[in-house]
């Protein structure tokens, strides 16, 4: 058996809130209570669940932006949270992230060229010219023009910005892209464009996604596997088509039942 691309084992994350009493333990928010799953190379995993179920917390832990209370996150067998700093840097090459808010995730003060090149600067010291070339390639891959290089984020629409964010994630040729609600802030018509793009890139570069969304249809569209998260635990997992057709866990069923169908039911 090959090593999975991403293996998350027994991930627990409790947040301590500010102490309210002088003595006595601080209150805890149990965001994650033992989550395990793995993503084989080239396949994509979706995570769904209601608000506050711990989806973004998983994303932060996988990106090593936060430390787990216990449990491990292994990327191609390396535990990200125990790697020495230098190796962690190198490992970051293989995993990139796309955020929900296309307005907040791009530094308004930097040009598109700088934004997209940021992962390169942090990792390897390639020459300016080579960097620019790669940025150009990356932008082309998401359907933006080279003439956009020297523009600022505020000169783009929401959909275009999300493309820039994806271009930034692509530039290191990552094996895994963690996408935390990448399309929920976008308009329906733009959302489709971005989803198509993500799908194309997956086919083109063999990228795996860890796609986080509360929209079941979005996950269904892009992922090979889905985990349903409820109160910091995975309550059900499987291939989306199968899961959505034959949900076993009551929470999954409730979730599915609540999705409005685009079939008119009200008759005047």
């Amino acid at each position, binding site marked *: 058996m090959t090593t999975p691309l991403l293996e998350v084992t027994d991930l627990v994350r409790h947040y301590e*809130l*500010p*102490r*309210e*009493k*002088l003595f006595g333990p601080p209150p805890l928010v149990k965001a994650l209570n033992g989550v395990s799953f793995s993503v084989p190379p080239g396949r994509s995993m979706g995570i769904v669940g209601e608000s506050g179920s711990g989806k973004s917390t998983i994303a932060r832990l996988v990106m090593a932006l936060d430390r787990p209370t216990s449990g491990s996150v292994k990327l191609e067998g390396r535990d990200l949270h125990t790697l020495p700093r230098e190796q962690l840097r190198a490992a970051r090459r293989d995993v990139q992230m796309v955020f929900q808010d296309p307005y907040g995730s791009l530094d308004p003060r930097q040009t598109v060229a700088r934004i997209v090149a940021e992962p390169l600067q942090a990792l390897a010291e390639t020459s300016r010219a080579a960097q620019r070339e790669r940025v150009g390639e990356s932008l082309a891959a998401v359907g933006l023009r080279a003439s956009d290089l020297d523009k600022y984020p505020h000169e783009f629409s929401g959909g275009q910005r999300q493309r820039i964010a994806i271009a930034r994630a692509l530039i290191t040729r990552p094996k895994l892209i963690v996408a935390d609600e990448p399309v929920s802030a976008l308009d329906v018509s733009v959302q489709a464009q971005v989803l198509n793009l993500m799908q194309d890139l997956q086919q083109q570069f063999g990228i795996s996604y860890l796609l986080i969304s509360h929209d079941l249809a979005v996950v269904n569209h892009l992922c090979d596997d889905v985990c349903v998260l409820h109160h910091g635990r995975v309550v059900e997992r499987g291939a989306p088509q199968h899961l959505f057709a034959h949900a076993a866990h009551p929470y999954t069923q409730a979730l599915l039942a609540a999705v409005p169908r685009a079939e008119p039911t009200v008759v005047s």
Partner: protein
Amino acid sequence: MSLFLFKRVLTLIATLIGASIIVFGVLEILPGNAAQLLMGADASPEAVASLATKLGLDQPAWTRYWHWIGGMLRGDLGDSYAYSSPVVELILERLALTVPLALLAMTFTTILALLVGVTAAARHNKLGDVGLMGLTQIGIAIPNFWFAILLILVFSVKLQWFSAGGFEGWDDGIVAGLKSLLLPALSLAVVQAAILARITRSAVLEVMREDFVRTARAKGVSQRAVLWRHVLRNAMIPVVTVMGLQFSELLAGTIVVENVFYLPGLGRLIFQAISNRDLIVVRNCVMLLAAMVVVVNFVVDLLYAVIDPRLKASDI
């Protein structure tokens, strides 16, 4: 609540200890001493020396520091070199003026600022707004001692409504006392009110963009009522924060204004005590000021909780 209070008390104590060391140290290197000053230029050196001994100025700094702190813990602040009367009495006398003055000035500041700030926000970008904000710009640019003289010129000299200064204490009644504090408080308040009005305006404008304002209006609440009933309280958090900072500015501002209105206040006491090298008075006054600032900030934090119920649970 308890943790919050505990933290506050710790801060207060740390501040006071820090202040005591800094103040003592700084004053130690002041050139000149009280004995020489009290005796004057023509005094014989023998006289100066015996006064220095009497005041305990000839002892090492270390001893005097402990003497001071020890005395303070026992509630004895020592005797003023210059007035040869207990510092406690001196300070209490002065506080009876400075605290009411600062409070009155703060009241003026608040009333003026809220009126101007809310009115300007309500007329956002219209003539009234631009006019009022222009006024506040001017208010900010006028030094308070200058404004004080202007007030005296108009209200004391020309109209003779108020005396040009001085303060007779509270024995003649609250009204008489307040009357003599009116002009000083006003001249202190104008600059601060101008600053606060601008803060109020932008806070109100910010809150006016919030969704719940639209909700209130959708209920049929009129624009005015929305402003005073819904918006203002929400806008008070930044306003109160600034007010807390302004209170210490006001306390400091009294040094200047008390000079113009010849008021026997704490500010002038400190100023004179420094030039008289009446260091024991300076030390105690500065400690008092530092404590007052910390306490005022504490009150501000309590006010937050009063204003905003969201803060009650976690912060206090």
